[in-house]
């Protein structure tokens, strides 16, 4: 059993849940609906390689760096090059999934003293490929979108909340029956929102 168990994350204030199934299935088992908190991110993965296994699904975190998680839509094409650089600096990768790179990259920047916003800005130029991704730390939530705008992202914001999803149909769940005034973040942009303490 101990050999089978895989570490999903270690954190102080961040909970990561990964399992097989849709959003409703995960909610039933883990009671996500009951969660009390300020922010969260979620992801459903279309597994194209061998197994439909939770350890290959998102969110990804960075080993040794607590409380950061990302979810990603797209393909990072300079994954191996960036991964080798980060491994040389002591970071460990748990999977061969290119999305994991984003978490490690951001963790590295934050460790070196960058703000999350700045880390996202540099990620847009440093990462090659297609990506729309969301990041969550203890106090902040943010997104970044590649220069080609190849992967969808739609945003809804009002005085009380910020909600971002791949498609509008997901956001509509927040306000059933209402047509929301959403907009699409432009390509090559990023932004962050901070938790009010």
């Amino acid at each position, binding site marked *: 059993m101990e050999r089978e168990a895989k570490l999903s994350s270690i954190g102080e204030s961040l909970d990561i849940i990964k399992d097989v199934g849709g959003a409703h299935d995960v909610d039933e088992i883990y009671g996500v609906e009951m969660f009390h908190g300020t922010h969260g991110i979620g992801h459903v993965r279309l597994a194209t*390689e061998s197994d439909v296994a939770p350890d290959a699904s998102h969110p990804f975190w960075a080993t040794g760096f607590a409380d950061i998680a990302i979810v990603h839509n797209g393909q990072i094409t300079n994954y191996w090059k960036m991964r080798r650089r980060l491994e040389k600096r002591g970071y460990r990768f748990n999977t061969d999934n290119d999305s994991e790179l984003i978490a490690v990259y951001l963790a590295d920047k934050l460790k070196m003293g960058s703000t999350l916003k700045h880390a996202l800005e540099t990620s847009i130029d440093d990462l090659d490929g297609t990506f729309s991704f969301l990041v969550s730390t203890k106090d902040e939530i943010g997104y970044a979108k590649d220069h080609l705008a190849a992967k969808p992202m739609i945003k809804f914001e009002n005085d009380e909340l910020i909600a971002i999803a791949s498609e509008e*149909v997901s956001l*509509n769940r927040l306000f059933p029956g209402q047509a929301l005034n959403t907009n699409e973040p432009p390509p090559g942009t990023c932004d962050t929102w901070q938790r009010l303490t």
Partner: protein
Amino acid sequence: MAKIDLSALSVTEANELIRRYGAGGEDVEVVNPDAKHHIGVGLTEPITVRVRGSAGYFCAGLTDGPRFEIDNNVGWGLADNMLQGSVVVHGNAGAIAAVAIRGAEVVVHGNIGSRAGQVMKEGTLCCAGNANFMAGYMMYGGRLIVLGDAGEQVGQDMTGGTIYVAGRIGSLGSDAVQTDLAGEEDDEIRAFLDRYQIPFKGRLQKIVNEGKKLRYPRNEPRVRAIPFFAASGDSAYWNAKVQEDIHVKAQIGRYRIRGYGAARPIPHLSDIAFKRDLRNLPADPDVVSKVELRTSLGGRFGAKPLDLSMPIMIAPMSFGALSKSAKLSLAIASRLSDTSENTGEGGMTDEQRAEAKRLIYQCLAGRLGWNIHDMKRADGLEIYISQGAKPGLGGQLMAKKVTPEIARIRGIPAGIDLRSPSRHPDVLGADDLVIKIEEFREATAYRVPVSVKLGAGRVKDDIKIAYKDGFDFVELDGMQGSTGAAGNEVLEFVGIPTLSAIQEAMDALADVGGVEALPVVLMGGIKDGVDAAKAIALGARAVAVGTAAIIAGGCISCLQCHVGHCVVGIATQDPEHERRYNVPAEAQNIHRFLECMRWQLASIAHAHGYGEVHQLSRDDLVALTPEAAAITRLPYAPEYRQQQDNDQVGGKISA
């Protein structure tokens, strides 16, 4: 006005209802749309559809004639490939609004996302707000009007059409240039805006194609070219062919273009052999009746499958690369041999549809010739991702072959050097492909199988995606596969051999447990029934022949298909040359060749004692070279090569 509630019905049910109301001439109101995908897809009646809220991807996609009005926002691919009609969106539109439209008028009152109007051919996209990155990307014709600001790289790679921007232009795309706007043209735009009640008092800037990219001013010198197949006869370096190649490049200053596929020797099906000695079998004219050859493709998701009389199909080849006469004889031959034809790129002609018993309709990235009406009369829909000759690249049809008729079918201006994009506007990942397949199924009421055409590149990954994404079958094309025109270095050095491709495909399917579920049709240098038998033994459900079929129909393999003066009238659009092609005679020739393949396939299966051709398996094969053994993991048995060297005499077969 009829009312449809999307909170009570699925989109599929709603679309069926919308089509039925359309047939009855009744307008429709859709409530609780909830930003769902594919609303109104496949509608070909001139009714009004009002969407009371937001729509998701491909709203009004693959339609002809209706008027759509959406109260709020829409997602990607608004009015995808719309032939005629109009769409008005009061909110914002996502990426690729009005992608591939062929005459519709699309108006978005809010902002539009990136790559708006990508590969549009005719019609108007008008945005009262701002446009995003690469507006008008790869336009072939029509008008794109932006009353707000346009982002970076406006008009990138446009071939035709016009873009009008009132606000700031972020930057011009490559091969786009700003030019003067004539008074009359300006009046036309304002008349359009008036018609849609869009107030506008500003000034418009006009952007068109500069015409500098991808033009070939210098032709190759007219000498009798040394065949590309002769290159590796002697030395690999400075042999006669390499010298000729360098001499020509020194004159034209660019890469050489030619037809066909890889010419240099690479591992192929001839490097594997059947274990059983097939040299001294009696000729049996009746053998075809003793082996079950019938093959069914495409029933995986409940569509009407293609029931072929044998596992040998005609490979996709376009009307454009080939003459109409050549395509016609292929269609006739496919019917006589009770198998299938494939339109290839460039659309379906009435003649093809009339002659072929089963016709697969291919959709490429440029959406050239793609339309909802032909989708509905096809027996299969195929999404082309790439082909073996040039995986990962787009296509070229030289100006000489873009005749008025071809231009009309494809929806582009005549006489342009046509470039087909390498990538679909709306397929940028495996997840997008799922939605695209869904859109096609919605448009045809789930009746028709949807297949994918893949050039052999990263086959293992691609096959897994094809399996997961829900295709009915795969057409897999190795680097020996041919094309009408591509750069020589691409043909020779990009891709992997057909033998490697089928092995990788089978390994991939074994990994995901999909070996029985996802049939693979193999092509790329299949030249006879023996190759077909080997391919099937390796795991292919069927094979397809392209080059072999046109050689049967008269091709002399000069590899000058791209020039447009094919001496036998196959790869040409010039009437003088095409006149030489005798359709009924060549149809019979191709048919006879297919029947020969049928006989060979049956004979080999029967010689093994199998009553069913798909009983052929890897256990029946050995590898003749170390490379083939490494590729296929078949036992290395060079002593079998002796069998190969026997001639085929009368009814005897060498395998």
